[in-house]
């Protein structure tokens, strides 16, 4: 953020507007709790340690789903970029499946995998795989022809060419795909936890709180979700980008 002071002011103003609204009594305080209540609830969740368990479960599901997606997606994308017949076989499948919102599959996955962890992870996997495949494929195709020729002229071939030129050349888009995949997983996991009736996870907390009209818990958890999402984006992906492709001058990293 260019001016941290302005950001603080922004949240102070937003907080003040919310507080005025919450205390005005337009809705009952059960519907629009004051910031103090939300902060207190959040504090309680943190002190009891329960929120960390929820966060842990949510991140665990993302880790497994996203990890599997990369394990499957990157090789498929590479093969598609390398061999014409793989591309011709996989691309139609991917283009039909990828625009379907992952959450539409929840009921089906519940039937196939039962309620709970497996369904949520499958959902994350489904949501994350396509961006990884598509971006890796585009990345391999977008590797500069001149680099390939130059490397071949210097005697690189086959495996060496692939590892030393194609892979790093495709990296900016692979990372972009990973980033997109994370954003999608984040959505999928929260939705999956709500609908697939797990007993742990941030999505579950929000959904469960609805039954008891605990709006303070819901808003507090939303806050946690937002901070975690932004944190991952800023800390992990931007660092990853800066350390690799940003340093090579291949993309302009955000904020520069």
């Amino acid at each position, binding site marked *: *953020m260019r001016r941290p002071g302005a950001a603080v002011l922004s949240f102070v103003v937003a907080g003040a507007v919310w507080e005025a609204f919450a205390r005005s009594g337009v809705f009952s305080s059960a519907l629009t709790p004051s910031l103090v209540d939300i902060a207190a609830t959040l504090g309680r969740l943190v002190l009891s340690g329960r929120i960390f368990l929820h966060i842990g479960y949510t991140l665990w599901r993302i880790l497994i789903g996203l990890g599997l997606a990369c394990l499957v997606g990157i090789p498929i994308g590479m093969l598609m970029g390398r061999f014409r017949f793989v591309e011709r076989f996989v691309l139609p499948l991917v283009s039909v499946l990828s625009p*379907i919102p992952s959450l539409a*599959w929840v009921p*089906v996955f519940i039937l196939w995998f039962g309620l709970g962890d497996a369904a949520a992870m499958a959902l994350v996997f489904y949501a994350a795989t396509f961006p990884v495949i598509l971006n890796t494929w585009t990345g391999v195709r977008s590797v500069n022809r001149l680099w390939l020729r130059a490397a071949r002229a210097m005697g690189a071939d086959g495996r060496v060419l692939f590892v030393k030129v194609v892979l790093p050349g495709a990296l900016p888009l692979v990372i972009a795909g990973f980033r997109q995949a994370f954003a999608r997983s984040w*959505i999928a996991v929260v939705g999956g936890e709500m609908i697939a009736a797990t007993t742990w996870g941030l999505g579950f907390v929000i959904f469960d709180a609805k039954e008891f*009209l605990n709006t303070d818990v819901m808003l507090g958890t939303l806050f946690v979700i937002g*901070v975690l999402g932004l944190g991952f984006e800023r800390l992990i992906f931007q660092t990853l980008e800066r350390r690799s492709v940003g340093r090579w001058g291949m993309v302009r990293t955000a904020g520069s």
Partner: protein
Amino acid sequence: MDTIVVTFARLVARGILPLHALSTILRLIVGFLLGATLGVALGLVMGRFRWAEDLLVPMVSVGNPIPGLAYAPLFVIWFGLGNLPAVLLVGFAAAFPVAVNTWTGVKAVKEIWIRAAQSMGARERQLFRMVVLPGALPWVLTGLRLGLARAWRVLVAVEMLTSVSVGLGWLIFGAREFLATDVMLAGIAVIGLVGLALEKLVFEPLERFTVVRWGMLTG
């Protein structure tokens, strides 16, 4: 596979699928228009006025990565069950990418266009209408596209949560009770088709007529 196709045909013939699809699409249109209007307006204000940028950008960038669906239970508490929370949530979720991209677009308008226009006597209002708006259009379109995709994803899921009486999300969710996998997959197929159609029939022509023709984006 053939059971899915047969079920699909049966559901279409009986008018069940078209009915569910239609009501979902109606919700999508109303919600998306709401969110797009809000998002473009916010984005333009943020791009044009320094105070608005300082005030709103931090909030939008924190709100943007929160999955729209996470708000669903809250919206249900606030606005009850049925159509209202679904439409509002769709609009809310769609507004974020639209606002962020519109803002970026306004900021990305080339300085040299502004200078050229100013040297030809363009005033503030004309500058905005005749240079900033078309200059930012590629970004605005990207934002609308992302917004629509997000709206579509949220809507399908939110229909499962807010107990609307008809809708594709509801159709799939309801079918689970009866283990009717064929119905569910038929519903998913329609969801995919609608998403694809929106992309091909709405955004691609829109881009061809504007930014691609202007060479601001390769088609």
